[in-house]
């Protein structure tokens, strides 16, 4: 594949990617019945005649799911259609008990949105074709029994949003960054937990290549089963190479659905265009058309929380942070909330931002799952970090000692003041004590003192280091500087 890769790297091909993101809405109940939509119950515990598709049952729309869907539409600048319709998507599978999925087809509830995301400091905007609501299917379990497949319908009927982008993404990294932004958005909106490892958020990618500069789209492959950021990047990278090799070998891409096999790191053909399902969509006669009027939209708008882009702007103006730091801090709602909790406890946003973007994020990334930043696993609270910065600001400890205290906070989860007291790390500000150390350092290094006095200014740092070492790092650095200067230059 090296020839293909180099041709690709030389810019011969342009990659065209569109994502279909499926996002499970965090409503209490399912889309068309009263069953719990929560994850993790025993098999088939969250079921009723409706989601079991018993004969004669009928769906009743959960309006809370529509509230959530409207929030997503507003957050992506989408146009909300006053009238939209439900449709049936027909196919046979044991975990689809009605043999059709209720979805939106010809008239989705919203269209023409856009999402802006940041990748390596560059802002990208991707347009959204549409967002629609639909119900999830159940789960087939094939490996629990030797000769039977089992079906768990807890997930059947759970509300989903399908967010379809225009084919405007150009690399796996862009696709992944877009997906991160999407997850951040749904978490900000409080409409989904966005947990990819539980399947609350997953996506399919339509990938094609074309000669750079071409205006028509190449033949695409649809890659399914992308359930982590890493899968998105790896699967797209693999698919780009696979397609590039075929095209460079004079072949043609087959329009098909491919499955990402994360274990083997390849995409495999699932079904060709000819084998594609004919879903026989038609309007769902059991539900009235969905009418979302202005009053409903305005009510949803008034309930909208602050969104990431707005919050980023506020961090710049209210806290005086750089655009970059504000972007990092607002990338997830949890992080931004964490930061603001710390600021509330101690009003030094810049110092807190520095600590969080360097030290805290490192720790959170280490404790989270693959590609995830997990704040719930941090051993200390934002108030602890605020207390640490307060200790620096009021001169109790030096910045250097603070690093030591921080690592002890990570280990023990203890309050920084308690750590400082226990370890005797309080800064020495008693000038008499510091002068004594200065005197002893000068007395012990007469040769270096002579060199310094003859003009070797650089040695000043050496003396500072020696004094700090003698004080076990606890001497107030400003006092050390001043007293040393007086002693050596005087």
């Amino acid at each position, binding site marked *: 594949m090296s020839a293909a890769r180099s041709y690709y790297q030389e810019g011969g091909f342009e990659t065209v990617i569109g994502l279909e993101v499926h996002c499970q809405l965090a409503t209490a109940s399912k889309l068309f019945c009263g069953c719990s939509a929560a994850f993790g119950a025993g098999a088939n515990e969250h079921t009723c005649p409706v989601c079991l598709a018993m004969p*004669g049952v009928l769906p009743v729309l959960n309006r809370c799911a529509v509230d959530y869907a409207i929030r997503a539409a507003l957050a992506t600048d989408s146009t909300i259609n006053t009238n939209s319709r439900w449709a049936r998507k027909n196919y046979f599978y044991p975990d689809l008990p009605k*043999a059709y999925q209720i979805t939106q087809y010809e008239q989705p509830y919203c269209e023409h949105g856009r999402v802006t995301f940041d990748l390596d400091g560059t802002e990208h905007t991707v347009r959204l074709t549409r967002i629609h609501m639909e119900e999830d299917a159940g789960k087939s379990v094939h490996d629990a029994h030797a000769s039977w497949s089992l079906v768990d319908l807890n997930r059947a009927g759970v509300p989903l949003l399908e967010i379809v982008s225009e084919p405007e993404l150009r690399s796996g990294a862009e696709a992944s960054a877009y997906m991160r932004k999407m997850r951040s958005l749904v978490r900000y909106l409080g409409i989904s937990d966005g947990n990819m490892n539980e399947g609350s958020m997953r996506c399919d990618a339509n990938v094609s290549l074309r000669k750079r500069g071409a205006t028509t789209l190449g033949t695409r492959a649809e890659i399914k089963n992308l359930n982590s950021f890493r899968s998105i990047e790896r699967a797209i990278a693999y698919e780009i190479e696979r397609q590039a090799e075929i095209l460079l070998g004079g072949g043609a891409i087959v329009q098909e659905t491919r499955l990402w096999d994360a274990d083997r790191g390849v995409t495999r053909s699932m079904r060709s265009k000819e084998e594609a399902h004919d879903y026989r969509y038609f309007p769902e006669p059991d539900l009235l058309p969905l009418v979302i009027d202005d009053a409903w939209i305005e009510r949803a708008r008034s309930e909208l929380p602050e969104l990431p882009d707005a919050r980023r702007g506020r961090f710049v103006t209210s806290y005086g942070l750089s655009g970059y730091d504000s972007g990092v801090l607002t990338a997830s709602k949890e992080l931004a909330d964490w930061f603001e909790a710390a600021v509330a406890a101690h009003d030094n946003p810049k110092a807190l931002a520095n600590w969080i973007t360097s030290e805290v994020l490192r720790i959170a990334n280490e404790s989270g799952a693959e590609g995830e930043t997990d704040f719930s696993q941090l051993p200390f609270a934002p108030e602890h970090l605020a207390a640490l910065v307060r200790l620096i600001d009021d001169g109790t400890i030096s910045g250097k000692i603070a690093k030591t205290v921080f690592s002890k906070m990570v280990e023990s989860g203890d309050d920084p003041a308690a750590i400082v007291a226990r370890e005797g790390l309080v800064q020495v500000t008693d000038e008499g004590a510091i002068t004594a150390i200065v005197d002893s350092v000068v007395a012990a290094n007469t040769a270096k003192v002579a060199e310094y006095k003859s003009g070797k200014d650089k040695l000043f740092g050496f003396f500072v280091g020696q004094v700090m070492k003698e004080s076990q790092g606890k001497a107030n650095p400003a006092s050390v500087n001043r007293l040393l200067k007086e002693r050596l230059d005087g």
Partner: protein
Amino acid sequence: MSRLDELSIEEASRRLASREISSRELTEACLARIEVTEPKVGSFLEVTAQLARQQADDADRRLAATGTRTSDTTALTGIPIALKDIFLTKDVRTTCASRILENFIPTFDATVVARLRRAGAVLLGKLNMDEFAMGSSCENSAMQLTRNPWKLDRVPGGSSGGSATCVAAHQALGSFGTDTGGSIRLPAAFCGVAGIKPTYGRVSRYGVIAFASSLDQVGPMASTTRGAALLLQTVAGKDPLDSTSIDAPVPDYAGAIGTAPTVKGLRIGIPREYFVEGLDADVEAAVRAAIGKLQDLGATIVEVTLPHTEYAVATYYIVATAEASSNLGRYDGVRYGRRRGEEQGLRDMYGESREQGFGAEVKRRIMLGTYVLSAGYYDAYYSKAMRVRTLIRRDFEQAFERCDVIATPTAPATAFEIGSRTDDPLKMYLSDILTISVNLAGLPGMSIPCGLDSAGLPIGLQLIGKPLDELTLLRTAAAYEDSCHWHRVSAELKP
């Protein structure tokens, strides 16, 4: 009248309320009648005698408390009725006359059934029908043959065949059926009883096994219009479990009909498209005579036109089969149907289960419906049918600018011989030619007896009303009934 099973619902209700008779006596009379007549007509798929006796005793206790503070009786308390086997009945087997549901015992009641139980009606059993309500003769039942009580070699009409025969044979005082393209009105006409298909959405479909969701509607049958009115007002009204049910107040139909209903000043529309070649001469004569009678009673007759009538059958068989092909997908062998256990994988299991579980007509309609929804055919068939459906609805809207009720024959001919149309689906489909448009337009329609043909078989007069105007239909029908004797002529159960 001497026999209790021959009482009309309103008369039985009066006697129950006055304690002249008990529900237990009435129920025993029906059960005895079922015992004698069932071998001839075959209305019932299951007789729930034990449940009926228990409900009758409960009803008698409720009736005994009449006039006290705890009184909770209704006009239906203690009235024995029966249900098409399409209604889910908790703990009572519900098959839809299909092999694929032969062992299905529902865990809950349909909304209609729950409302009937609450009202104190007594459930005698479940009635035969065409499998999944697909048919016009009741011959598509996978379970048994049902015969027309008027002439046992004739079909009772379908799909709610058992619902009509049980009333005509006095096995029950009333019954419920469903009507997707004529399935209440056609058997009502063939068996000489009153049957009403209400406005789409007037009665909840929750717990009613779906055939074609945008057309299916529940309705009652009884020997008299007033009896049908009492049944309808008990079950009608908004149901939060059915999003398509209409949130409109339900009138006291029986009370509003009163003792002396009049048609004075009523404008009755006669659509010329419904009196065409192929219409049986006896049927035409009887229907025209009935219209003449209504005119004598003070109604004005106006000619109206429903120009898209000729497309109704084609439109219906696209819309109904499309919806059916989807509704019946759940019977896939995973939970319903028989499994031999030798199936080779999933596809084979689906194929085997559906091959064995469905009858020929059901398979024919699933294939037709699958075809019309398929990629490349959707626009030519389904989409076009939906547009024609709008035109048919508009035809009625325009006609109703000139009249209050439309009167037509219910069927082009009287009950045909068993087996005479089973090999010719298209001819069978044409039995519904005069009833189908009403479902496509979502309007209320009714059939009442208006005469007998030369062979002694009943003829039905169809009345069609404006949306949610069941009351005008019922009032017109009752005024007609009060002026004639046709509803009092009984079937003799002769070969």
